[in-house]
Structure formats: structure tokens, C-alpha cells
């Protein structure tokens, strides 16, 4: 590109940015805000006001709609992969096949390394949980708009930023660990699992706290116009992408670790040894 062309390109970009800035400032009237930052954050935690109608059956937290959307998208993509990609797998994998194999192999390896005795079901569970947490957290970045029961527009949050979803996943993980204990050691396994009675609470609230922190920071950043430039890029990466990776790893790893611990066959102690 010539110097003249480059100059006109830069000028064009600068003009567009200036026009956008003017538009943002002119349209951002404080009267337009329907709730204060305190209310917005309180509602993000408690979901008292912003409810969404679930096909007219029940008013639910917006995170449940997110959860359904994530499920639909994931199952649709999985079905496409099953129909169009997996039948074309070759012994020498291509890039996408390698990615899929890495993904499955990673969770399978995590299950096998942490629970050497019973890991078939565990691998399948942590694969589902890991994908759900990761994609569910990333889902927040798309900012899909939805209408609440009070006719307000909200951006759909991460499914696990809802305490109900976090409790569901935490308790289900605990039940899976319990099932591993029963399958591996019977009543002794139940005892071993119940010994860690704080596990479902810690798992649920760890997930909820981590994902909620991301949501709160994002709410704060987008609430103030002055913070809406550049900063969301950093915030988005730090509080969404990293959380997505870390929380997916933490929950799956903890589940695999406890599952392996309780399903490990009990060795009878020999008298002299």
C-alpha cells in the first residue's frame, strides 16, 4: 500500500472510531439506566428480579436458559461431528481429528491416572462436565440478549454463575463419587464418601464463587461507559477464558481424584506384615 493510501485508510478508521465515540456518549444517558450498579450486582448474585419465563411453565433464572442453549449447541455440534467427521477418521489423524482425540484422551487419561481401578464411567462423566463448564463459561462472552419477565433486556450469563446450576453440578459430582465408592467397596465405599460430607458444598460453592466473580467483574466493567474500552478484552480473558479452563480442570480433577480414592479396593492387612 502506498503512503497516500495508508494515510487515507488511517483517516477512515479514525473517523469511524470518532463517530462511534460520539454515538456512545450521546446515547449513554444516565436516565436510560433502569437499575443501579448495586441492584445489578445484587441481582446477578440472587436473581430476585430478573427472571425469565421458561416456555410459560415457570419463571427461572436466566442462567437456566443459558444452560439449555449451551446444551442444544453442544449436542448439535456433537451430532454434526458424529455424522460428518467421525466416519472419516483415519489412522493418521488430521488436525481436527487430533483435537478431538486430544480432548477425549485428556479426560480419559485424567480418569485413568486418578482412578486406576474403575474409570470407564468416570471418564465419560468428567468429559461431559469439563466440556459443559468450559463452553458454559465461554458462552458468557457472546452476550446473547434475552427478555426478562419484566420486559427488560439482559445478556445471558454463564450457566454456572447461577447457584442452582453450581449446586446441581457439585451434588451430582458427589453422587458420582458415591457411586464409585459403592461400586468399588460397597458399604465401606459409602462410609469413605460420606466422610467427606463437605465435598458437595465445597465443589458447588467453588464453582459458583469463581464463575460469579467473573460475572460481577464483567457487570461492573460494562456498567460504566468509561470502563467499556480496551478493559473488557483483558477482563474477558482473565475472568472468563481463564475461569473456563481452570474451573473445568479443577472440578473434573477433584471428581476424578475423590472417585479414585473411594473406589480403590480395600486391601486386607496381613497379620505379620
Amino acid at each position, binding site marked *: 500500500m502506498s503512503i497516500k493510501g495508508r494515510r487515507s485508510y488511517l483517516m477512515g478508521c479514525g473517523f469511524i472510531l470518532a463517530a462511534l465515540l460520539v454515538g456512545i456518549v450521546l446515547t449513554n444517558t444516565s436516565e436510560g439506566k433502569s437499575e443501579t450498579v448495586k441492584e445489578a450486582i445484587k441481582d446477578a*448474585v*440472587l*436473581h*430476585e428480579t430478573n427472571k425469565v419465563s*421458561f416456555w410459560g411453565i*415457570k419463571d*427461572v*433464572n436466566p442462567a*437456566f436458559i443459558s*444452560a*439449555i442453549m*449451551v*446444551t442444544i449447541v*453442544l*449436542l448439535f455440534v*456433537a*451430532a454434526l*461431528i*458424529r455424522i460428518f467427521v*467421525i466416519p472419516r*477418521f483415519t*489412522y493418521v489423524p488430521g488436525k481436527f481429528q487430533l483435537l*478431538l*482425540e486430544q*480432548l*477425549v*484422551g485428556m*479426560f*480419559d487419561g485424567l480418569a485413568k491416572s486418578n482412578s486406576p481401578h474403575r474409570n470407564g464411567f468416570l*471418564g*465419560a*462423566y468428567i*468429559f*461431559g*462436565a469439563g*466440556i*459443559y463448564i468450559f463452553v458454559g463459561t465461554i458462552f458468557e462472552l457472546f452476550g446473547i440478549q434475552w427478555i426478562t419477565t419484566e420486559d427488560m433486556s439482559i445478556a445471558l450469563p454463564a*450457566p454456572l454463575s*447461577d*447457584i*442452582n*446450576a453450581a*449446586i*446441581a*453440578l457439585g*451434588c*451430582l459430582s458427589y453422587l458420582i463419587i458415591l457411586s464409585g465408592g459403592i461400586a468399588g467397596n460397597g458399604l465401606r465405599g459409602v462410609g469413605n464418601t460420606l466422610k467427606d460430607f463437605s465435598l458437595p458444598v465445597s465443589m458447588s460453592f467453588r464453582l459458583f464463587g469463581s464463575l460469579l466473580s467473573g460475572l460481577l467483574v464483567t457487570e461492573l466493567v460494562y456498567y460504566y461507559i468509561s470502563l467499556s474500552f480496551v478493559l473488557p478484552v483483558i477482563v474477558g480473558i482473565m475472568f472468563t477464558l481463564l475461569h473456563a479452563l481452570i474451573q473445568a480442570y479443577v472440578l473434573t480433577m477433584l471428581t476424578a481424584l475423590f472417585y479414585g480414592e473411594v473406589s480403590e479396593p480395600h486391601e486386607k492387612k496381613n497379620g505379620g506384615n
Partner: protein
Amino acid sequence: MNIPLNIDWQQILLHLFNFIILAGGLYLLLYKPVKDYMEKRVAYYQDLEDKAQEKLKSAEDIEAEYRIKITEVETEISEKRLKAARKAEEAAQQTIDEAKKQAEKIVADAKKHAVDERQKMISSAEKEIAELASSAAQKLMQESMDSTYEQFFESAKRR
């Protein structure tokens, strides 16, 4: 009942229901087929490796068998060589013995011949000597008779 943080049991169950469908779907559509394929590939390469190991083992067995055969052949060769050497030695000894016997016979024959020759020579010499002696004696007698006659005639003449 008002639960803190607006925890709603119905929504928890809804989330559970949703997640179970998702996990089941992902298992059937993605996890199981990909894992099955990976296991199939592992089995394929394992089979190849097993076959290669089997071939290697059979090659090693054949090698060991041939080594044993080579050792046996070498032992046989050395035994045969030893036997041949022993035979050659025996044959040589036999030849030497025969030659010795022959030589002894030759020497014995020669000695006998020499003794016979000597005996013959001695007897011929004795005979010759006897002949010579008799002829000499005859000659002496003849001479002495001749001289006696001459002396007699001489003496007769002078008288």
C-alpha cells in the same frame, strides 16, 4: 421455605436434568465413538506390533536352531577331522611298520646273503688255497726232484 441465596430446588433439578441429557448425549455422540476409534487404532497397532514380535521371535528361534545346528556340524567336523587324523596316523604307522619290516627283511636277507657269499667265498678260497697248495707242493716236489736229478747228472758227469 425461604432458602438463602434464592436456592430453588426445582431449578436445581432442572439443571440436573439438563446436564444429564447433555452428558449422555456427549457420551454417545462424541466420547464413545472417538474413544472406540482410538482403541481400535491402538488394537490395530498392537496387532501389528504383536505380529512383528512374533516374526522376530520365530526368526530368533530359527537363528537359535541354526546356531545349534552349526555347533553340531562344527563338532561333527572336528570329530571327523580327529578321526581322519587318527586314521592317517594309523595308516602312516602301519606303512612305517611295514617299511620297517621290509627293511628288516631286506637287511636280514642281505645279511644272510652276505653270510652265504662269505661262506661261499671262504669255501672257494679254501678250495683255491688247497689247489694252490697242492700245485705248489707238486711244483716244489717237481723242482726238488729236478734239481736232485741234475745234481746227480752233474756229479756223474764230473766223474
